[in-house]
């Protein structure tokens, strides 16, 4: 602690000055709610399969954003945000790998 206090005058979180970690609590509640919505939709067969799949994928993407912004503090930090660029590129490549593989491995079956 001594070193910390010596180096760190008033070590406080910026957005979370108060007594309660509101950011985290809000993030947590949102993530649970999103999960339960997805589960509910699927178990109730609320839509046609393709529509359902798209909906739950959208919910999953929202979940990622919750984790990144509320828990992983992605926007913090000084200097250029190279990690944001890399993550964006990473997600593009993730999409390329998954969608590309599926596209290639169906052998143009969509044409028949």
């Amino acid at each position, binding site marked *: 602690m001594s070193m910390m206090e010596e180096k760190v005058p008033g070590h406080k979180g910026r957005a979370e000055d108060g007594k309660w970690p509101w950011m985290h609590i809000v993030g947590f509640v949102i993530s649970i709610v999103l999960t339960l919505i997805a589960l509910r939709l699927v178990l109730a067969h609320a839509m046609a399969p393709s529509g359902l799949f798209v909906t739950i994928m959208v919910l999953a993407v929202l979940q990622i954003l919750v984790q990144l912004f509320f828990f992983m503090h992605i926007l913090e930090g000084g200097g250029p945000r190279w990690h944001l660029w890399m993550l964006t590129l990473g997600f593009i490549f993730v999409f390329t790998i998954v969608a590309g593989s599926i596209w290639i491995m169906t*052998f143009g*079956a969509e044409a028949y």
Partner: protein
Amino acid sequence: MKYKAARWLRMLPVGAACLLLSGCTREQFLVFNPAGPVGRIEMHLIILSMVLIGIVVVPVMLILWYIVHRFRDRPNNRAPYRPEWSENRTLEIIWWGIPIIIIGILAVNTVHDTFRLTRPPEPTGKPLTIHVTSLDWKWLFEYPDQKIATVNYCYIPTGRPIQFVLTADAPMNSFWVPQLGGQEYTMPGMAMRLWLEADKPGTYFGSGANFTGRGYAHMKFDVIATSDPEFSQWAAKVRQTAPALTRSGYTQLVKQSVVGRMSFSSFPPGLFQETIMREGGMYMKHDISVLDNKA
């Protein structure tokens, strides 16, 4: 002087290549000696691409030679020396532009022919289907219409589009008859369609083009193109004289070995489809539509 000699030395390989080219007969360059429409389309694309890249490559070589010669660091070289000269918008636009144009021309032709070659080459003739299975280390050809089968050689009629349906009951190989056209993989569990056609009679060299182990180098076969009547005669003769391919015979054939030519008067019906379905074809919509001969 020493460097000049070295530069001439560099021309040696080019000269040697020219000599060689004149030494080999054109017939031996199978890709440039096509015997059917598919091979011809591909050859034209190859020549087109050679010309287009020549537009870039040849000037690059000449410019390189000129620059190194002119701006060589030797005493009394009068050529300008401008160590800070490093930007020129016009030049850069030119050499971003030229490759873009060349690639553009090539791209249009590529896409056009890619789609064209998935269709039968000449819609006039009646298509013939041959089922091809690559095995360790031999080629099995089944004629579903003639109900005969051959190993390591096949007959095709000239002037009719041939629909080769390719699969493998062994590690993946590739079916290549350079003079008729390009190759396609034979894959376990897949029914791949390859359209070829011969427009003159002859014996065409074919080989497996994808490595499959010890006997791979011996996976050569001949495609013999004859006139339609001769083809029918041949098929009738095989049906009458050759032994039948039984299921146990097929099991033997699948085992690893190198064999010569074989002919069979019949084969177990549905063998080809069964093999494909067992090895994963049942999950592929594509296979089912090819086997049903749709589209």
